C-alpha cells in the first residue's frame, strides 16, 4: 500500500464530517423553531386539530432554537439554506465511500459479526469502555456496534431526513407524489421527519460521549488532519 492511504480518515470523510456537522446543528436548531410553530404531530394526510395529534411536542426553549427569539420565517431561511449542503453532502459522501471502498472495507458488517456471542462480547467491551477491539482481521477499523451505528445513520437516518423533508415540501410533491404516499401522507412524513431528527440527535449525543471517552483530542485531530491507521499505531 502507498503511504498516502495510511491516513485513518480519508480527506473526503473529513471534509464531509465537518460540513455535515455544521449543517446538522443549524438544521436541528432551526427545526426546533419550526416545531414550535405547530407543536402537534399527526399520522395520515391531514392534521390540524391538537385533539387528533399522536404527540404534543414540548415547546423548545429559546437557548435551543435558531433564531433564539421565535421567528418562523428566519428559521425557515436557515433550514431551506442548510438543506442543500446537508443533502448534497450526503450524496457526495455516499459516492466517495463507495468509490474509495471505505464503505465496503470499514462499514459493511461481516456475517460472523452477527453471531450472538460476538455481539455480546462487543457490548461487554463497550461497557468496559474498551473501544480498541476492532474486527478480528486486523484490517477492520471499526467494531461491530460502530459499524451498525454508522450503517444505520448513513443508510437510514440521514437519507430519511432528506426524503421526509422533500415529502413535506408542497412544491416538490408533484415531482414524486409516490414519495408522500409510501411515507403514509404528508402529516406522517412530517412526523417521521421529526422522529429521524431526534434519532439523529441521539446518535450525535452518543457519538460525542464516546469521542470524549476515547481520547477527544486525538480523535478530533484525526478527523481534521487525517490521523494514522490504528494498526500502525504504537499503542
Amino acid at each position, binding site marked *: 500500500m502507498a503511504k498516502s492511504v495510511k491516513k485513518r480518515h480519508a480527506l473526503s470523510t473529513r471534509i464531509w464530517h465537518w460540513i455535515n456537522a455544521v449543517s446538522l446543528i443549524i438544521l436541528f*436548531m432551526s427545526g426546533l423553531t419550526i416545531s414550535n410553530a405547530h407543536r402537534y404531530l399527526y399520522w395520515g394526510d*391531514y392534521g*390540524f386539530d391538537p385533539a387528533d395529534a399522536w404527540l404534543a411536542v414540548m415547546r423548545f426553549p429559546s437557548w435551543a432554537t435558531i433564531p433564539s427569539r421565535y421567528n418562523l*420565517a428566519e428559521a425557515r*431561511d436557515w433550514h431551506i439554506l442548510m438543506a442543500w449542503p446537508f443533502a448534497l453532502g450526503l450524496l457526495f459522501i455516499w459516492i466517495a465511500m463507495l468509490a474509495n471502498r471505505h464503505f465496503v472495507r470499514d462499514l459493511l458488517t461481516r456475517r460472523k459479526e452477527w453471531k450472538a456471542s460476538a455481539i455480546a462480547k462487543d457490548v461487554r467491551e463497550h461497557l468496559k469502555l474498551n473501544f480498541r477491539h476492532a474486527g478480528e482481521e486486523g484490517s477492520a477499523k471499526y467494531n461491530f456496534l460502530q459499524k451498525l451505528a454508522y450503517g444505520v445513520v448513513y443508510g437510514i437516518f440521514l437519507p430519511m431526513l432528506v426524503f421526509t423533508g422533500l415529502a413535506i415540501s*408542497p412544491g416538490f*410533491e408533484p415531482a414524486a407524489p409516490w414519495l408522500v404516499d409510501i411515507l403514509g401522507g*404528508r402529516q406522517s412524513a412530517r412526523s417521521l421527519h421529526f422522529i429521524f431528527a431526534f434519532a439523529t440527535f441521539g446518535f450525535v449525543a452518543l457519538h460525542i460521549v464516546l469521542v470524549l471517552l476515547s481520547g477527544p483530542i486525538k480523535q*478530533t485531530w484525526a478527523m481534521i488532519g487525517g490521523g494514522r491507521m490504528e494498526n500502525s499505531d504504537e499503542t
Partner: protein
Amino acid sequence: MKRRTLLAGAAALGTGACSKIAGTDTANSLFEAAEDWHRAAHRTLANRQALAPEYAPEDRSPTFRSNGSKTVDTPEYRAELANGFANWRLQVRGLVEQPLSLSMDDIRALPQRTQITRHDCVEGWSAIGEWTGPQLSGVLDAAKVKPEANFIVFYCADTLYGEDYYESVDMVDAYHPQTIIAHQLNGEALPEGNGAPLRMRIERQLGYKHPKYLTAIEAVSSFENIGKGMGGFWEDHPAGYQWYAGI
C-alpha cells in the same frame, strides 16, 4: 482545535451568531439563492404544469381550519356578507388589454373546476377540502394579458396587523390548471373564515400564498412598487416568509 472548542463555536453559531449572520446582506442573498435553487429544482424535476395530488371525497378533513384573517372588519364587508355578496366585484386590471369587473354571477357562469386538495400551512398543519371556481388562466385569457406581464398580484379586502393583505405569483403558477378563483368550499359558498366570497387556490404552495377576500387581480411586470416591494404581505414583513412558498 479541540472538539470542545468546535462544539462551543457551533453552539455560539447556533444561538447568538446565527441571528447576527442572518441580518447581513450576504446571508440574505444566500437565503434568496437557496430559495431560488429549490424553486428551480422543483420545476426541473416536475413538469411545470404537474398537478398537486387530488383526493377522494372521503379523504377530506372533517372541518377546514381557518387561519390568519378570519373576517374583514369593515361595515362594507358586513353589509356584503349580509346580502350574499350581490354587489361584490372582482377587478381584473394592470397589463391587460381588456380590464374586467366581474360580479359573483359572472364568476359562477364561467367554466368551473372542482378539486379536492390538501392545504399546507407554513406552520406545519394540513387540511383537505373540495374547492370550486373558474381557472385563473381563463380569466386572464378573457382579459388578454399583455406579453410584458411577469407576475399576477392578488389584492384582498382584509388587513392583518393593520396592513393590507396581498400576494403574487409568477405566470407558471398563474396559468397552472389547479390555480382557481374558489367561491365554494365542500360544495357550499365559501365561509367567512375561509375568505368569502372569493379566495385563490395556488395548490403547489403553502397556505399564505392563497389570498382570501379577493377584490382585484392585477397583471404586472414587477411588484417592486407594490407594498414594500417583496411581492406579498408576509414577504414584506421584517425577515418575512419566502416569496416562493413551495418549500
